[in-house]
C-alpha cells in the first residue's frame, strides 16, 4: 500500500529536482497523458479491490492509454477539432466512476470490519 505512494513521491522529487521542463506547446499533450495515467492507476486500484486485477492488462493499459490520449490530442491539433476534449471527457468520467467504486468497496470493507 505504501510502496506506490513512495513511488509517487520519489517520482515527484526526481522531476522537481532535475528542473526538467518541456516546451510549452507540448504541455497540452502531457496534461492529457497525465489524465490517462491517473485513470489507469485508479482503474488498477479498483481492480485490485475487486480482485480482478491483472498485471499484464494494467501495464499495457497504462502505456496504451497514455499513447492514445497523446495521439488523440495531436490529431485534434492537426485536424483543427478539439479532439483532446473527447479524451478529457472520457477519462474524466472514468476517473469519477473509478473513484466512486473504490469508495464504495472501501466503505463496504470498513462496515464489515466494524
Amino acid at each position, binding site marked *: *500500500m505504501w*510502496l*506506490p*505512494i*513512495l*513511488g*509517487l*513521491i*520519489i*517520482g*515527484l*522529487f*526526481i*522531476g*522537481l529536482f532535475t*528542473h*526538467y*521542463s*518541456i*516546451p*510549452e506547446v507540448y*504541455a497540452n499533450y*502531457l*496534461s492529457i*497523458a*497525465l489524465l490517462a*495515467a*491517473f485513470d*489507469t*492507476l485508479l482503474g*488498477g486500484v479498483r481492480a*485490485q479491490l475487486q480482485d480482478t*486485477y491483472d*498485471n499484464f492488462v*494494467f*501495464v499495457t493499459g*497504462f502505456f496504451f492509454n497514455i499513447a492514445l490520449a497523446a495521439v488523440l490530442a495531436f490529431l485534434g491539433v492537426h485536424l483543427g477539432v478539439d479532439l483532446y476534449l473527447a479524451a478529457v471527457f472520457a477519462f474524466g468520467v472514468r476517473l469519477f466512476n473509478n473513484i466512486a467504486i473504490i469508495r464504495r468497496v472501501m466503505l463496504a470493507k470498513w462496515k464489515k470490519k466494524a
Partner: protein
Amino acid sequence: MKKRHALTMTLVTLIIGFMLAIQFETTRNPQKRDTRDIWQLQEDLAKEEKRHIELNNEFKETSQLLQKYKTEQGNQKIMAMKEALKELKEKAGVTEKTGQGVILHIRPMVDTSLIEESYYSVSAILLRRLINELNQYGASEIAVSGERIINTTPIRVVQKKLFVNDHMISDVPFNIHVLTPRPKDFAKRVDVSQSGEDLAREGLVITAEVKKLVKLPAYTPNIGLNYLHTVKEDS
C-alpha cells in the same frame, strides 16, 4: 497485494509522479521567447559592451591596487590601504569635492514679485527624473541646494516640502551643483533636456552656468548599513 503487483504499481506511480513534476515545472516557468528585434539586440549588445569596458577598467584598477599591496611592505601597505580608503570615501561621496562643472539654476519663469514664491514647487518625481537625466548626461557628482546626492539619497515630499537627504530644500529658486568632465557639452544637453520641458510645465526654468571650479559639499549623515552583509569569497 502481491509483491509483484505492488512493484508494478510503484513503477507506474513513479512515472506518474515524474510526469506530474514535469507538468508543474512547465506550467510554472513557461519558457520566454526572445522577441527582441535587431535594433533592440544592437542596443543590448552596446550596453553589454559598455559594461564589459567598465568591468575591465575596474579589474585593471583593482589589479593595480593588488600589485601595489604586494610590492609595498610594512608602512607602505598601510599607506596604500589609507589611499584605498580615501578613494572609497570619495566614491561614496562623504568627502568634499571640487572640479570643473556646471551650476544649474532653477527659478520661476515669470517675475516673482507678482506671484508668491511659495506658489512654485518642484515635485520629488521631477527632481528624481532630473537627477537621472543629469547622470545620463555624464554628471559625476551632484549636489542639490547644498545636499550631496549619493547612491542611497532619499528624495521625498513631506507636507508639500521637498526633502533631500532628510533635509528640507529651500523653495524655488535653488541651485544644483554638478561636477562633470565636459561641462560645455553638459550645459548644452541640459538646455534641450526633457526635464527642462517638464519644469517649464510647472512654470520653472532651468539654466546652466559653466564653471571652472565647482565645490560640492560632503554627504554628512550616516550611511545606513543595516541591510549590508559580507559576501563569501567563493559565492
